[in-house]
Structures are given as structure tokens and as C-alpha cells.
């Protein structure tokens, strides 16, 4: 990493030139991008961005993920659309002595509330309703906040992003519940659980929001906001 000073200086000059030419972000001082160093996405080695590919793992080097916001938005909008069928259609059907009951995601929560299992109701409600909606809204908002002045400070936005990234996969709980019930509760003629259409749609929502959170380049929060101050 101990490149000679002259080289670093020329890199900074090249970077500044590139910025003035293409009207791109001005990277804040103290960041790797400011010095023309790219943080490898795969192995976190810092290298001169002009090298093109990481000398350690050969992944492509970028100062910031290209078109991060556009790709995140496309994925989130798809997820929001898919969330509609996920709530309209039943997530599973219970067949009790040839008597078929369909239950939606919200229906499942209501069932637990009615039977007095408030804790489980809260867990499923959080995993299947609260987290996906909150996640999609937060990511939308983060995309917006990187282009506008936001009410929240940079550390707060950054914390929000980390929370959505961490919590994403926990929304799969309901899918696994369905998978286990379908396999386990299968005594023909007495009690059978069948998967519902909403389960596929909901799994799609979870996957799409997870990919969207991965695609979002959290460093953009810090780039833009520092400029505005």
C-alpha cells in the first residue's frame, strides 16, 4: 500500500480532472475514493482504481458501485408490486376432513391473536408485515436522501441502512413455516396443509428486497451529504 507519494498525487490530479469533465461526485476528504483508491467489493483490498481489476482477487474495481441507485430502485419497485399478490392470495390452505380453509399472511397473524398467542403473533407480524414494508420504505427513502438534503443526519441514515441489511433475511420466517407445515401436516383424509400462491410472491419480495439492499451503495449517503453541508 505504500505507493510513492508522486503516484498518489498524480492519481488525485487524474481523479479531479475526471470529476470536472464528467460532473461526477466530489468525494469527501479522508475517504479512499478521494485518494483514487477503490475498496474491492470481494476482498476489501485497497487499490488504485485505474488498475481496473483487483490485483488480489481480480474483481472489477469501482470507486462507487455503478448505477447503484437505479438498480436498487428497479428492484424495490418490483418488490412493492409483488407484495400486493403476496397479501391478497392465501399463503397456505389447510384441509381438515375435506374442509378447506385458506389463510393469508395477515389472516395467520389474526389467528394467533385470537388464540391468545400474542408473542408469536408479534413475531410473525414483524417478520411478514412490518419488516418488509419498513425495509422497502427505508430503502426508497435512502435512495431519495442520497440525492436530496435529508432531515436525518448521516450517522442516522447509515444506521438505518445497516439495520435493513441485517434484518432482511428474517422475513423468510413465514416461508419456512409454510415449508415445514406442508411437509409435516400431511395425513390424507384428516389434515393436510397445501402451499398457497402468496408464498411464492412473498418469497420473491424477500429476495428482491435483499438484493436491493446489497445493491445500494451505502457510501453514497456520506458522499452527497458532505457536499451539502
Amino acid at each position, binding site marked *: 500500500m505504500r505507493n510513492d507519494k508522486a503516484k498518489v498525487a498524480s492519481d488525485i490530479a487524474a481523479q479531479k480532472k475526471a470529476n470536472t469533465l464528467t460532473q461526477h461526485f466530489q468525494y469527501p476528504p*479522508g475517504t479512499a475514493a478521494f485518494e483514487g483508491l477503490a475498496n474491492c467489493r470481494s476482498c476489501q483490498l485497497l487499490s488504485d482504481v485505474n488498475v481496473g481489476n483487483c490485483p488480489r482477487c481480480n474483481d472489477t474495481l469501482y470507486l462507487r458501485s455503478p448505477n447503484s441507485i437505479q438498480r436498487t430502485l428497479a428492484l424495490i419497485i418490483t418488490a412493492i408490486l409483488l407484495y400486493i399478490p403476496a397479501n391478497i392470495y392465501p399463503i397456505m390452505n389447510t384441509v381438515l376432513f375435506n374442509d378447506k380453509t385458506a389463510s393469508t399472511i395477515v389472516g395467520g397473524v389474526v389467528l394467533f391473536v385470537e388464540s391468545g398467542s400474542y408473542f408469536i403473533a408479534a413475531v410473525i407480524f414483524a417478520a411478514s408485515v412490518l419488516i418488509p414494508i419498513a425495509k422497502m420504505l427505508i430503502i426508497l427513502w435512502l435512495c431519495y436522501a442520497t440525492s436530496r438534503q435529508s432531515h436525518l443526519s448521516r450517522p442516522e441514515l447509515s444506521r438505518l441502512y445497516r439495520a435493513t441489511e441485517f434484518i432482511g433475511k428474517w422475513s423468510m420466517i413465514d416461508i419456512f413455516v409454510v415449508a415445514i407445515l406442508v411437509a409435516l401436516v*400431511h395425513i390424507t383424509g384428516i389434515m393436510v396443509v397445501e402451499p398457497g400462491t402468496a408464498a411464492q410472491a412473498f418469497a420473491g419480495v424477500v429476495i428482491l428486497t435483499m438484493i436491493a439492499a446489497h445493491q445500494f451503495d451505502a457510501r453514497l449517503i456520506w458522499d452527497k451529504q458532505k457536499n451539502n453541508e
Partner: protein
Amino acid sequence: METQSKIACHDCDCLIMLPEMQINQTLVCPSCSSKQFTTYNRPLDYSISYGLSSLILLVMANSFPFLSFDVQGQIRTITLIQASNDLFIQDFVFLAVLVYIFVLLLPMAYLSLLLILLIPIKFGLKSFFAVSIGRLIGYFRPWIMAEVFIVGVLIALIKVIDLADIIVGFSFWAYIGFAILFTLTANISNRHQLWYWIDRAKR
């Protein structure tokens, strides 16, 4: 290759000079306070032993009954793979593949690849495809949902506990053991540590 003297925070791109770190210390970004990595005691030995135990438990979790469901003497016993397989039979292919990948395939691939990478390094031998394995492992990690699956199973059990007698099989406990050891393995062989080893293997 030189050892890294500084890294950039993955969340805010702040340059961080790598300090001298003691065991069980976590490096936190001074600018955005996001966790970078934690150092562990004898990471190579623990990664290999936890990883191997975890893999063995995962194989065992696939070889015994997972759960049994008993309604008026009619018993239904399932294995772990049926969580995915029965969805497949009902033509929910997308769902079946997802469950299979997140619960079984990726953890299995992650642990096998990690061991293929680390065991030669431990014995000072040449490690093949070290760089490709390092990158693959990084891609797999966010999609492994063992702990989420366990919570899902527990909630499913609570849903049916009034309807029938539930017998918890050996596989269930094996899977929980696997999940705990997997989390430990993945934490110890974190990205920073992993690429340090890969650098060493290439030398």
C-alpha cells in the same frame, strides 16, 4: 504481496489505518461506527474444527428423522429434505428451490469450500483455487438462513402443537448444533481474516 496497512470502511469509505489488535477486539469505523471485523484466538484452528463439526452435524441432520406428527395414532415422520421436497411435489418449484438453497445447499457448499481452502493452509500445503473459493464464500454468506429456518420451524411447531403430538427427531437437534457452529465458523473466518489467509496461501 505486502500486508495491508490500511482499509476503507465498507459503509462510508473512510480510510482506516490498521492498528495493532489484541485477541477478541473489534475494529470499528471512527467515522460511521460500523463494525469492520473482530479478531479471534487461534482463528485457523478454530475455523477448521468448528467448520468440520458443523459440516458433520449438517450431514447427520440430513440422515435421520427431523420431526414426527401424530394424530390419533396416524404418524407422519419427515426428514429435513422434505421441507423442500414436498413443496416440489406440489409444483411450488420456485419455493422448493429457494428453501433447498438457503437451508441446505449453500451452508453445505460454504463449509466444504472453506475446509478445502483452510486445511491445506493449516498444513502449509498449496491451496488450489484459493481466490475463487474466497470470492464464492463471500457471495454465499448473506444467503445462508440456518438461524431463520430454526425460528420458522419453532413457530410451525407452535401452530400445530394443539392438533397433534409432536416428536422431535435427532436431525432437529443436529441442525441446531450445525447452525450454532456455523455462525461461530463464519464469524471467525470473516472476510478480513479469510483474505489474509488466502494471501498467505499464494506466497
